């Protein structure tokens, strides 16, 4: 029997009030693979990731990670579950009361109870991987540029060498060179740690570089899912419109409606 994929979402639904954001979303990622999710703004990509982490509770549907149902986990079981994840938030979400190095080391110190000196060394090493020198460690998040904050968020996400990593728009706000450094880092985390990753991006260059598989989300469902190298020949009009960034096509932006 083929092994069950590492992460499986089936028929996940979530509405905020009358607004149906996830409409029976099905997606899966195999262990050690990198899935990139693309899709327009406001289509529910961030919400999807948050349901997997249990930050947002789906209205219905099942989410299985490593063969276990995880919707509604509580208490210590939930903490244990979450300690397998790293997450880069779209807005970085750094703790602004803590200096940068403590942000990066947070999961090690609080989550894994590592002693501070060791956690600090690891934090500095991870910061170096995202192109930040040790002197940045003493600064507070408010003293950093947007792109630097993103990289600190990234360092925090990978600090504990997690089994599963989510990147919500890892390269937005970075210059093209740094974006490529980050792409390499994501590819490297998958190879070196064997992590399973889901990345959300609008940046097709980045998607092509980091993805093993690509899934496109539209109106709260996955409308296309396939190996990254077949995206140009998907034969799906929605996907074609998205990757070529055309205003005309089946996807009608709300602003264009008369």
């Amino acid at each position, binding site marked *: 029997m083929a092994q069950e994929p590492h992460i499986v979402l089936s028929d996940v639904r979530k509405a905020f009030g009358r607004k149906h954001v996830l409409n029976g979303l099905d997606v899966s990622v195999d262990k050690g693979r990198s899935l990139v999710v693309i899709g327009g703004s406001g289509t529910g990509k961030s919400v999807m990731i*948050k349901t997997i*982490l*249990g*930050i947002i509770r789906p209205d219905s549907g099942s989410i299985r990670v490593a063969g276990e149902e995880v919707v509604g986990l509580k208490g210590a079981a939930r*903490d*244990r579950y*979450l*300690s397998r*994840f*790293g*997450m880069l*938030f779209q*807005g970085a*979400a*750094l*703790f*602004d*009361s803590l200096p940068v190095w403590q942000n990066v080391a*947070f*999961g090690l110190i*609080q*989550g894994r109870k590592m002693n501070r000196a060791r956690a600090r060394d690891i934090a500095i090493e991870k910061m170096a991987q995202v192109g930040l020198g040790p002197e940045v460690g003493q600064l507070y998040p408010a003293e950093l540029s947007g792109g630097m904050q993103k990289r600190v968020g990234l360092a*925090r996400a990978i600090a504990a060498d997690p089994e599963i990593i989510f990147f919500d728009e890892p390269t937005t706000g970075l210059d093209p060179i740094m974006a490529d450094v980050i792409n390499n880092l994501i590819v490297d985390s998958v190879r070196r740690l064997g992590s399973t990753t889901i990345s959300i991006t609008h940046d097709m260059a980045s998607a092509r570089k980091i993805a093993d598989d690509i899934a496109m989300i539209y109106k709260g469902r996955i409308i296309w899912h396939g190996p990254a190298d077949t995206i140009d020949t998907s034969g799906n009009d929605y996907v074609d419109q998205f990757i070529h960034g055309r205003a005309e096509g089946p996807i009608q932006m709300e602003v264009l409606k008369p």
Partner: protein
Amino acid sequence: MNFLANLGRVVLALLAETGRVTLFTRDALIQGLTPTIYFRQIFDQLMKIGYNSLLVVGLTAFFTGGALALQIYLGSSRFNAESLVASIVALGITRELGPVFAGIMVAGRVGSSIAAELGTMRVTEQIDALVTLATNPFKYLVGPRIVACVISLPILVGIADIIGVMGGYIVGTRSLGFNSYAYIKNTVDFLKLDDVTSGLIKAAVFGFIIAIMGCYHGFNSRGGAQGVGRATINAVVSSAILILAANFVLTSFLFKN
């Protein structure tokens, strides 16, 4: 008809809010005050909440004690009962005005800052980030604030009692012509331990109210800077009102006989 409908809506909203606060309080107690305990956070909060409120609470107490002495002097001189000034100032400060004024000042200073800080953390997803780092926000954020408030307020009120009585003493001896020795003797002889401890018990309850309301409104803020602003106002107003209400209830319990 319309009026009744509106009234009904307000009552329902109030009941719903009460329910939510109750559930939040339960989570705060069950999750926030059980291990893991973040001692470093507790210490930080003690500094922020307790130590940094000293000046505000001290000044409030001083002027309150002074004004009280003046008023009681003016009132009691109508019955030639000026000798009561010292003891009534001490009673008023320790039983009522010390804890209530300290509570309200701290609600303004600390309740607002808790709500604003946690509210900002909520809307910038820092609370979600805590969760993804396998850290329970109730334990890391709410618990330490409750502990710090419940410890700080009685200490602050203890200090406020001393400063308030001192305010009365200074007004009494400098401008009302009381003999310094007699004023102190009057205060000490008359004051009972109960007067002070009842005030400290009140203070601990007020501290709990401030922490819970600050955390509750901060945790539930929505919608950016505006939402955080609203949360801050709600935290201060609701804790001030709850403090006054709790004070009334506690006074009627603590001084039954």
